């Protein structure tokens, strides 16, 4: 990991940078985003820290994630965004030598309590990953995999597969070839297949870890539309390095940054602020947020 401050700008969108240091990204003013209701919190996170061995990747994060909204997590690379979101469904503990401190309440239940089964957690809190990762099976089998291994016995698997693919806005494109390999799909289609696969196990929350970073703008657009549709039924947390994306889709935005300590050797992610997306992009409460979204980071 480089300590050169110039490289910290990596994640700042190119368009923002070239447009001049003080220009803000354009914020769409659709009513969806302007009015953000105060729904019940789904996650209440207090003083969350995460360690890889002795290295502390994130420190003392406290925030709420509200239901049926899209919460975006933005920040420069190495600020612990992905580590943070992977704490929410206990994916991180699959990595040996890691440790969580602090508390995450999910509907008031401590997610890391002794009698909580991480497998049940992941069943209810689904995840979509950075790169589309379909199984080397047919489109149909990809969607049916989750319900099968989770012992869900739907009245008709065909209907469940169709419904999931419809919800992921993929059905019309694949209905004639669901028995074909998932690898025959384009990158954007594969990612929507992964969303369909996630929906098929009927989760309550969908975590998305930079779901569009490997996709072209058109495919990105499709996924963003899909997310806005899905929030009727799901709570969504999305990690993104693309500020416009956060501005376009999210209701609330959390800005993380990396604190460099120990002579620049350790970079620990901290939450700077969480607020309505519009406010974050127009009148951020913290100087560091302002610097980042205007591209004057560093």
């Amino acid at each position, binding site marked *: 990991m480089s300590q050169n401050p110039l490289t910290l700008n990596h994640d700042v969108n190119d368009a923002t940078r070239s447009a001049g240091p003080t220009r803000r990204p354009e914020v769409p003013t659709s009513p969806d985003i302007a009015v953000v209701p105060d729904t019940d919190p789904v996650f209440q996170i207090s003083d969350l820290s995460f360690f890889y061995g002795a290295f502390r990747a994130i420190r003392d994060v406290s925030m709420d994630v509200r239901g049926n909204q899209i919460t975006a997590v933005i920040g420069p690379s190495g600020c612990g965004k992905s580590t943070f979101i992977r704490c929410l469904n206990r994916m991180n503990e699959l990595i040996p030598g890691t440790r969580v401190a602090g508390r995450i309440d999910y509907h008031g239940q401590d997610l890391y309590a002794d009698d909580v089964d991480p497998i049940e957690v992941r069943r209810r809190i689904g995840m979509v990953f950075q790169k589309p990762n379909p*199984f080397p099976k047919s489109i149909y089998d990809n969607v049916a995999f989750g319900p099968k*291994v989770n012992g869900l016995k739907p009245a008709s698997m065909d209907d469940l597969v169709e419904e999931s693919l419809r919800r992921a806005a993929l059905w019309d494109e694949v209905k004639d070839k669901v028995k074909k390999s998932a690898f025959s799909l384009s990158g954007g289609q594969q990612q929507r297949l992964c969303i369909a696969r996630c929906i098929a196990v009927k989760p309550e929350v969908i975590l998305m870890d930079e779901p569009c970073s490997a996709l072209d703008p058109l495919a990105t657009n499709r996924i963003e539309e899909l997310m806005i549709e899905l929030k009727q039924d799901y709570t969504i947390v999305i990690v993104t390095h693309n500020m416009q994306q956060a501005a376009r889709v999210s209701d609330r935005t959390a800005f993380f940054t990396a604190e460099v300590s120990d002579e620049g050797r350790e970079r620990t992610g901290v939450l700077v602020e969480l607020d309505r997306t519009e406010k974050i992009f127009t009148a951020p409460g913290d100087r560091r947020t302002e610097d980042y979204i205007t591209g004057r980071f560093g």
Partner: protein
Amino acid sequence: MAIPLQAPDIGIARRRSRPGERVIVGLLALCGLLSVLVTVGIVLVLAGEAARFFAKVPIVDFLTGTRWAPSGGRVDAGEFGVLPLINGSLMIAAGSLLVGLPLGLATAVYLSEYAPARVRGIVKPVLEILAGIPTVVVGFFALNFITPSLLRPVFGEGRVFIFNAAAGAIAVGLMILPVIASISEDAMRAVPNALREAAFGMGASRRVVALRVVMPAALSGITASVILGVSRAVGETMAVTIAAGNTPRLTTNFFESIQTLTAYIAQTVSGEAAAGSTRYQSLFAVGATLFVITLGMNLLSIRLVRRFRQAYQ
């Protein structure tokens, strides 16, 4: 390097011919070609003597005969039906798979999907040591431990012969265990983590991830490891010569003494088969049979390994 039309006379632009370098590359190429010569040598040696053998014993009789009874000494006669030897080799292969496959696969899945780094750090070297134990020592172990301290107490003194196929098969099973474990583990570790994450993210347990995601994705590598294991088992000589006996027999009783293709070769050369005798030539016919069987399996296994290497690159 392009040669300019008008080379300035400073000695850098012209391509120098380097005879020394050519000689060296030629020598290196010879080293590479030597491996082909080895194969040619094997084929010629086996085919030459085997042809003389088949001039005396019709190849059909050899391949379909059910009695293997080469006469020793000066009488140049005997029966040369190879089926009892093939039967012996197959018994050893099947029996060793019964031991090596479940243990090897369990080890591979455990190391690849379950084991913490510290346990891996212990088990991997143990497997390497096991793979490096000389076969003659494994044979000693079979004769001095597996038969008297394991098989006889469990199955009965009267039922289990001192030399028996089961002891040989277990010993060979221990030898192919590391082969199956290490190649299968390689194949499973080559399965991208993204696939595991996808399944874990849906609430799959480790068992489901291993059985439904990782193992299917690594299937060609696992198959290759099994085929290679069988090929090793068929080609293994000392452990079976020592522990499984030297009685060519068409049997399915694992507690009896048998003889494998390889054990026949080892037994015949340590005896006094005069060069030129049918018995001496039978050595090469049996060797050729062994070579063809193992070659076929190795080719298949190499194909499969290549497939899993390509799949995720």
